[in-house]
Each structure stands twice: as C-alpha cells, then as structure tokens.
C-alpha cells in the first residue's frame, strides 16, 4: 500500500506540474483589446498588468503577482506582454505558468504600431514597464508604474470604494 501511495503521490506531483505548466496562449492585444476588457468586466474590478521580458523589474515581481493572483482567484487579472518586437508566445506561457499566473488572461502586444496601441490604452502612458491599470466596479481607472504594492492592491480590491492608491 505504501508503494501505491508513493505512486499516487508521484503522479499527483506530475499532474500538478502539468497543470502548473499550463497557461492560456496569449491573445493578441490590438486596438480593440482595452475596450473589450472594459466591456467584459460586468461590474467587477479588473486588474490589467503590462509587463515585458525586456524589463528586469517586471520579472522580479512575477512570483509576487502569482501569489496575489492565487489569493484573489475570483478577481479578473489580465497580463499584457508589451515587448515591442514581439515575445515568443511559448515563453510568455511558460513564464506565467512558472510563477503561478497560469490562470490570468494573457495577451501579447500585436506587431506594428506600438504608439497607436499604447495611445488606445492610455494617452499618458509612456511605455514604461511594469505598468498597471486598475478598473474599479464603477469603471473608474487608476494607474501606477513600477513595482506593485500588493497590500494596497488587496485593500483596493476589498474596499468597496476602490479609491485611488
């Protein structure tokens, strides 16, 4: 019986690893994507995080984002890869899955006119990464650049007012 338990444990481990390795292939983030995210939120708060492999600061905090996502599994979180020459979609999947972000909505920047796509998201966003947009229940959008303060983010989610950070 011990052997069977061990086998089951090993299989469970393999299965968990498989599940963790899974993440949705990133969808292309084009000029309509931001509006689609806004329209699809159904009165719920949404967190949209822009990141890139070209940004060391982004990579450093991916695991913390993974923990945050796990602790707020009922929250819609979107991760948009904004590497301007196009990151390998498989690498995006892998990086997100490895850091516990396999369940977030994943996008990658469409090829082409980056300025126009960025303008469609926010006129004031200058392309710095990481960059995060918080859409409150009432549709109010607040933003921040740089590392996330996850305590504040949790408060924002829990706070009915979802006031600006």
């Amino acid at each position: 019986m011990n052997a069977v338990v061990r086998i089951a444990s090993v299989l469970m481990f393999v299965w968990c690893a498989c599940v963790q390795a899974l993440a949705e292939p990133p969808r292309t983030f084009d000029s309509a994507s931001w509006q689609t995210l806004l329209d699809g939120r159904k009165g719920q708060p949404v967190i949209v995080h822009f990141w890139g492999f070209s940004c060391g600061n982004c990579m450093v905090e991916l695991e913390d984002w993974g923990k945050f996502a796990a602790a707020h599994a009922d929250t819609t979180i979107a991760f948009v890869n904004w590497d301007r020459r196009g990151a390998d979609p498989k690498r995006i999947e892998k990086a997100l899955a490895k850091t516990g972000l396999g369940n977030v909505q994943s996008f990658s920047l469409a090829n082409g006119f980056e300025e126009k796509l960025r303008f469609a998201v926010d006129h004031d966003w200058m392309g710095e990464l990481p960059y995060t947009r918080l859409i409150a229940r009432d549709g109010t959008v607040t933003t921040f650049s740089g590392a996330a303060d996850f305590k504040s983010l949790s408060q924002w989610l829990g706070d009915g007012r979802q006031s600006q950070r």
Partner: protein
Amino acid sequence: MRTHLKLAALLLLAAPVGVAKHAQAHDGASHHHETAAACASSELACASVATGAFAPDGKLWLTWSAGGRISIASSPDLGKTFSMPVTLPATKLPLDDGPDARPKLAFGPNDRVAVTYASRDEKYNGHAFIARSADGGKTFSEPQPITTDSPSQRFETAAFDPNGRVFVAWIDKRNVAAAKKQGKKYAGAALAYAWDDKPGGALEAASIARDNSCECCRIAVAFKSSGEPVVMFRNIFDGGIRDHATITFSDTGKPGQLYRVSEDDAKIDACPHQGPSLAISSDGAYHATWFALGRKLKGVYYAHSEDGGKTFSEPLRIGDQSAQISRPYVLAAGGTVYLAYKSFDGEKTSIDLMTSHDGGRTWSKPRTVASAANASDHPLLIAQQAGVYLSWLTMKEGYRLIPLEPQS
C-alpha cells in the same frame, strides 16, 4: 488499495489533457512567426532600427539591424540610394531588439570606422561587439566582444576622440553578478568604459565608471572640444532615485565626478526604456534632453550647463503634454541647438523640431518636420558641413534623411 489504484489511474488519465491544451500554444505562436518570416532578410527594407552618420568627407553612412544581421552601407545622394551593404557575421544569440537598442557607427581619422552592436539572451543579458574598418567602411574586421568577464553589456556607444582613439561606454552587469555571488543586493547595473590602447589599437580592459546605473536605457556620449568624453545616463541615486547624471572624463581618460542633471525624483522600479541625449556646443555648453518619470518631473525635458555639467539650467518641459512626447534628441551645430522629438496624435507620429540660437536659453516654437502613420524608429539628428538632418526610419516609407532649417 483498489481506491488508491483508481486514483492513480484517474491521475494518469488527467495528464494527457494538459498536453493537448499545451499544444494550442503552437497555433497561437503562428501569427508572430509569419509576421517575422514575411520580412526576414537583412535588407534595409526589413530593418526596424537604423542609425545614420556622416563620414568626414560628408558622405552619409547607415547601419541597421534586419533579418538577424547588422549591415552597413553608404549613400552618395543623401539617402536616396545606398551602396551594396557590408553585412557582419551572424551572432550566436539574437540581436538586441530592446526599445533603446540599436547598432551605431562612428568615424575617425585615416578612413577608420567603428560599428558597435549587441546580441542578447532571453533575459536581455547583452553581448556587445565592435567591428572596425581601416578602409573607410569597404571591409570590416572580425567583430570583437567589447569586454570579457561580464555577464551582460548593453547600450554600447563608440566614438573617436580627436586623437583617433576609440572610446566605448556601455551598461554592464559584472558587478551585479559579483554582488549576487556574495549574497548582496545591487541596484541596476553599472556604467562601464574602455579606450583603445593606442590610436587604431585594441580595446583595453573595461573599467567601471559608476556603479548602480539604470539597466534598461540608452546612454549618451558627446565630446568636449578639448577631446574629453562626457557621458549622460540614468543613474540610481540614494533611495533608488533614477535621475539623470553626467560624468565628464579627464584628459587622462579617467571618469570625473558625477553631477546630477535634474531632480526628477524618479523613485520607481520601472524600465522607462528611454535614455537621454547629450550635445556639446562649440562654446563648451552641455545640452541635455531626457524623459523624466519622477514625482517632481514627468515628461520630456531640456536643460543646459555652462560649467561643465556641475549645474544645469531649470528643466524646460518639451512639447504638448497630451501628445505622448517621447524620444528627444539634441544636436549642436553652427551656433544653433536643434532638439527633435516624437509626438503622437492618436493616428500618426510626428517628428517636431525646436531650435535655439542663444545656447538653449530661448527656443523657437516646435514645427513638424516629418510624420508617419505607422511604426517608426527613434528620430536621430546628424550633421555635416552642409547642414543638419533628421535621420529617421519608418516602417512604410523606409529610411528618410530630411534637411533641417534652423527656425527663427
């Protein structure tokens, strides 16, 4: 025991579902691969970045990155046509395609040319190279790494001093790796440099000019009329403030004191991907322009220094703030300071130009000198005796060299 066996069987059955789902990723990737494959040659038409420079004889030269290769060509007619390019050997890793990365070329005496560029790994650790020509760009030597014993070098910039020695500066991560080994924290990367051991010689071993620089932005190099290089870069000041600074090198080639350009108060762990630009006019004034992402200043700014960088004028905010102003570039020539930058109106990118005839104290109103309704490279300003030009690569229109008239 039967229950356990059933559980094990169920788990086994569950695993292949994951494999099937994972296979979808390959389909998702096809769009990107097709796009890249559509323009995979090393021709200028496939380039995403191109850097122009004038040779001492006034001829335009261009280096660009396309199809995974670096090419160099000259133009006898100011960019209308180009010679058959020289294409440098392929790098083992892909070329650095970060937002502020580009190949560059510099001209020295006696037909000498230096081209610098970098490849990078998946984590954007760069490997920078220098290729040299001693026959005016007809042929180039085998590219050499600019340094050894460093896990990453990016944003490399080479220039010839008036004596014909090459000066190369870049952002280096050797001290990041050393700190990590010792279990210590290290913010950002470092500003590194190397000189030729003699005019036309080989690069000496690298030295670190300053620890803790921002790791993701281009640096700017300009020369004083007396021949010493000045480097402007995004430094990390105490408290993690990523504001800009200059270091002026001494006549012995050593880095001098670091001076802050402005108090942007950029306390932010983000990659702006926008480095500064620096020019030095014949009267010795430093002209600096940069993108600020601070708590005090945010946007594109200009300032000048009349005391060798020790103090700078009050930063002047550039451009219409609703127009996503970015990528400023400054050049000083013939008693005029030129400042070009990108603006975006929601549909098209424009390159706007301002000029100053009094050393940066007052400026003309901005004037649009070029525009594009698709992706484009950063605007660069280059000069030869006959005038100053905007050097700009756009996706649809290709390479453009546009003469600039100073404005009153």
